[in-house]
């Protein structure tokens, strides 16, 4: 049983450290908003004045994109892939193996800190304004809100496990260029972050349904706009938990291999 109060310290430290890199905060927010503008414009143009398409109202679709961009901001505020790779290459992570804590957990808790800072200082104010001043669909009942937040949180954990696993591959591969881009592609398309799964060609929707990525954006987004509702919500969250467990074991496997390699060959 990990002693969580130890990990809390990492959360607090990361929160404080985020302020030092204030430029990161502003720049991330800036590019997040540009992408919001881009996808908002794209979907506006795709709907081309229609009230609804494929059973989804224009308003719901725009809300989907906004929620998705918000979650992209949240997920992007943690330790990014390249930084994990960098830490592997410079031996930072190998050094930390000597410390008495679980390293993937330590980075997760540190991410909580920097993500919290980013949400409080940047994302929440901006997105709250968007929702106040523009006419978007908000979930009506508390249950939907709670399940959205739960689904978004589980999605965050799934992404963390996958991103960390990809990052740790640097222990085994000198150069991961191609693999990285597969990761980013899956992250943007198969997760439903920019195009909801229901607009996919049928075969691709099936492929996406059998992969964990939909748990990161598609499920929380769809819950938010009410596309996934009632009993389906629990089913979807159950599916997310299923994927979280699998991704967690994947991360453990990669991590064990990696630390084994460090111990045996010195990194």
């Amino acid at each position, binding site marked *: 049983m990990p002693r969580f109060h130890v990990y809390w310290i990492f959360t607090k430290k990361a929160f404080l450290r985020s302020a030092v890199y204030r*430029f*990161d905060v502003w*720049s*991330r927010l*800036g*590019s997040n908003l*540009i*992408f919001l*503008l*881009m996808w908002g*414009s*794209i979907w*506006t*143009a*795709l709907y*081309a004045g229609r009230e609804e*398409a*494929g059973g989804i109202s224009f308003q719901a679709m725009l809300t989907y994109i906004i929620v998705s961009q918000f979650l992209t901001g949240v997920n992007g505020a943690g330790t990014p892939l390249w930084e994990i790779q960098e830490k592997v290459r410079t031996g930072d992570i190998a050094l930390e193996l000597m410390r008495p804590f679980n390293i993937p957990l330590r980075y997760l808790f540190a991410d909580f800190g920097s993500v919290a800072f980013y949400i409080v200082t940047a994302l929440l104010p901006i997105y709250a304004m968007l929702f106040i001043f523009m006419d978007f669909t908000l979930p009506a009942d508390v249950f939907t809100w709670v399940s959205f937040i739960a689904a978004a949180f589980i999605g965050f954990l799934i992404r963390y496990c996958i991103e960390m696993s990809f990052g740790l591959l640097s222990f085994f591969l*000198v*150069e*991961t*260029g*191609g*693999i*990285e*881009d*597969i990761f*980013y*592609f899956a992250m*943007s*398309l198969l997760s439903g972050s*920019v*195009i909801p799964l229901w*607009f*996919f*060609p049928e075969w*691709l929707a099936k492929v996406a349904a059998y992969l964990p990525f939909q748990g990161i954006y598609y499920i929380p987004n769809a819950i938010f706009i009410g596309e996934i509702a009632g009993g389906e919500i629990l089913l979807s969250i159950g599916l997310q938990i299923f994927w979280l467990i699998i991704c967690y074991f994947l991360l453990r496997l990669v991590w064990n291999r990696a630390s084994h390699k460090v111990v045996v060959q010195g990194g």
Partner: protein
Amino acid sequence: MAAIKYVNLYFKLVSAGIRAQMQYRFAFIMRIIGLITAYTGTAVTMWVMLYQFQVLGSWNFFEMLFLYAVAILSWGFCVILFLHFRSLDTYILNGTFDRFLVRPINPFFHFMAMKFDMASFGQFIFSLIIFIWVSLELHIEWSSGKVLFLLASIIGGILIQGGMLVLISAIAFWTTKSQQFYWVVMYPARNLTNYPLVIYPKIVQWIAAFVVPFGFVNYFPAAVILEKGTPFFPESIGYFSPLVGLVFFIIAYCVWMLGLSRYKSTGS
């Protein structure tokens, strides 16, 4: 030093850069694979997007692919020549930039000739295949005039995007940061221009035409070749691409040199 000496020196320096890159052959191949994967990924996303909707602001899938391929082609050259400008901040912070100032040649030239990213040739394969495919699908007649126009626009695109990279790197002279500006300005801007400008709010289109002239990289020229309208802009605006590129690049160069005069080096 005479211009001819500079050309000669450029090839010497660049070939050294290439040989340095070739020391890491596996990385080189992985990078090519990575680039092609990333571009294919965007193309697939476009396809999925238009699977249900057919058109995006009156542009169909193949027209959008063409638009995309024009951008990728000039970006490919840009990566080869200028991409390393975005890491000027790293050069400054670890002190390696100092060396460019203690040598008897133009520091801009020296820095530019420092790297020559061969992996970008992967992009040419990608955009060439797309050009051929789209030309067949859309029955584009390639007269020599059109080919010439495309080439001129590509050069314009290289100068615009290269100029942008130079501008971004110059920020490092004032703030010791450039890589991040690349990710905040250049990366989203490039993504934005992968789609026809007409879909964006007018103010954005206006900025993309007259402030950060990315519209001249692919949208305006592609509209000319595909004979598509460019609402809010005169039809022939695409012909100005090379001129815009030249002016923009000269401005960028001047800003860079101005920044250089404020260079602060690094401590420790």
